[in-house]
């Protein structure tokens, strides 16, 4: 499904601030994998997403998605098959456009001069009602009036309205309060399961890294230092993950943003 082969990314090459963000990474994602990614700040998790999405181009190596080489493809071309959510709920939708208009953009079918049809509206209403947030009755309201949690749920809806080949979640619940985060995570699980999506999720919550998905990856200094799936993973505890980190990176995982429970 997604192949990352010998990919390296260095920032500020040739200067004092040179930073090796991704170090000769090789990585394969199978169809319908739901992979959780953990690691300290600066481990290269977001850079990995940026490389997959085309925000940055890699220094070398190739990235293949669904049999197509997308290493040099432009960001908006890749976005047709990749859905992405950021930590900041404000990033994923246009506040001055209504819920309906945002969804029309996300639905993205039809020509440039097509406008929203009755069928589309019905489809949007049904999709929104699954969120259980009452958004289906606020279709004409500008998105700027929604709360952070509602906006993130809407962004998730927009990203998956046409099921993407790959869904990238970059700590998408980290800016929400615990209750809302829980709810958005539930919706995420539901949408990923229903559409059988291939999904990568960065999280700082070690417990949800183990609870969600079928595979967990730990990154450090641009490398994958631990990769567990199947039976090996089902027996893991948060303490095991911490031990693995110390064992593989030679230091304790004592990041203040890590949530150990």
């Amino acid at each position: 499904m997604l192949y990352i082969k010998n990919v390296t990314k260095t920032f500020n090459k040739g200067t004092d601030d040179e930073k090796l963000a991704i170090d000769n990474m090789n990585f394969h994602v199978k169809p319908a994998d739901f992979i959780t990614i953990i690691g300290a700040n600066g481990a290269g998790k977001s850079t990995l997403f940026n490389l997959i999405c085309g925000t940055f181009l890699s220094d070398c190596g190739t990235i293949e998605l669904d049999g197509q080489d997308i290493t040099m493809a432009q960001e908006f071309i890749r976005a047709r098959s990749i859905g992405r959510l950021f930590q900041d709920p404000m990033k994923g939708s246009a506040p001055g456009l209504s819920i309906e208009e945002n969804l029309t953009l996300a639905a993205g079918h039809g020509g440039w001069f097509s406008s929203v049809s009755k069928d589309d509206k019905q489809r949007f209403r049904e999709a929104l009602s699954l969120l259980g947030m009452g958004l289906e009755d606020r279709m004409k309201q500008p998105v700027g009036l929604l709360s952070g949690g509602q906006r993130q749920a809407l962004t998730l809806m927009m990203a998956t309205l046409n099921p993407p080949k790959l869904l990238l979640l970059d700590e998408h619940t980290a800016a929400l309060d615990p209750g809302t985060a829980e709810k958005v995570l539930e919706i995420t699980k539901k949408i990923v399961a229903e559409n059988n999506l291939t999904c990568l999720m960065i999280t700082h919550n070690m417990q949800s890294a183990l609870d969600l998905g079928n595979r967990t990856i730990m990154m450090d200094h641009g490398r994958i230092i631990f990769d567990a799936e199947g039976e090996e993973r089902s027996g893991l505890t948060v303490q095991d993950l911490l031990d693995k980190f110390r064992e593989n990176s030679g230091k304790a995982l004592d990041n203040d943003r890590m949530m150990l429970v």
Partner: protein
Amino acid sequence: MSLSSIITLGQTALELGLICGLTVLALFLSYKMLNVCDLSTDGCFTLGAAVGAAVALAGHPYLSIIAAMTAGVLSGFVTAVLQTRMGIDSLLAGIIVNTGLYSINIAVMGGASLLNMNKCDTVFTKMKSVLDGTALVSWHKMIVAVIAVAAVIIFLSLFLRTRLGLSIRATGNNPDMVKSSSINPIFTTTVGLCIANSFTGLSGCLMAQYQKSVDINIGTGMVTIALASLLIGNVFFARKSIPVQACGAVFGSFLFRLVYTIALRMHMPAFMLKLISSVIVIIAIAGPYFKTQMPIIRRRMQINSRKEAR
């Protein structure tokens, strides 16, 4: 002042307001929707006037409209390419195009800085001959202007509802979102600026034919005047639907012209127009800003006065 002169005054203000309203609608698209302050507006307005006049003088009054709009599209395209593909800041791109257009405009006018259209056919004289003998003949200029404005508003209302129109609005509203969605911001910015500048070109073309002459300075200050009009319209129709907002922009243009015409009647010298438009823009933008700052200023004053009381 007699009633008939008041009507004439209002009529002139309305005609000019409608014709300049086309430029306001251009900024409605580029400034308000796309969030690009297009400083090539002045030059583009003159370009539309010059191209329109040249074509009309060659004996093609209808073709002059199409030619002026096409010239506007080209001008907008250059501005867009500079800022999306060549790494030039969007304000600077507008200024550069504006400067370059000065030479082009003189060239279009055959090396002269003034073209006279007294004897040639324009869309206004054509409309006059169509209406000849009817009661509407004294309104022929108004009718042309209304048709142009109505066409542009209807176009904008329909266009901004399409996927392309929504994409343009999203590009101006949340660039972060657009970057990570499948919309190409370079494409939407380019299309938006091309369309907006075609309206500016049309506006210039009609203005030249309305006053039967083109001066190389016809467009000077248009961007400020149009911004002032847009912001005046915004005061009344900010949170309404797109078609109402567009009508509000034209209404702002009319109001601006009306105030200006009245001021002229009260013996304000004509050269004051541009200072007034600058002040209006300053008030319209700074006003809301100070409104948000007022609570803080008031609180500071309270704290200071309490200190003094001690």
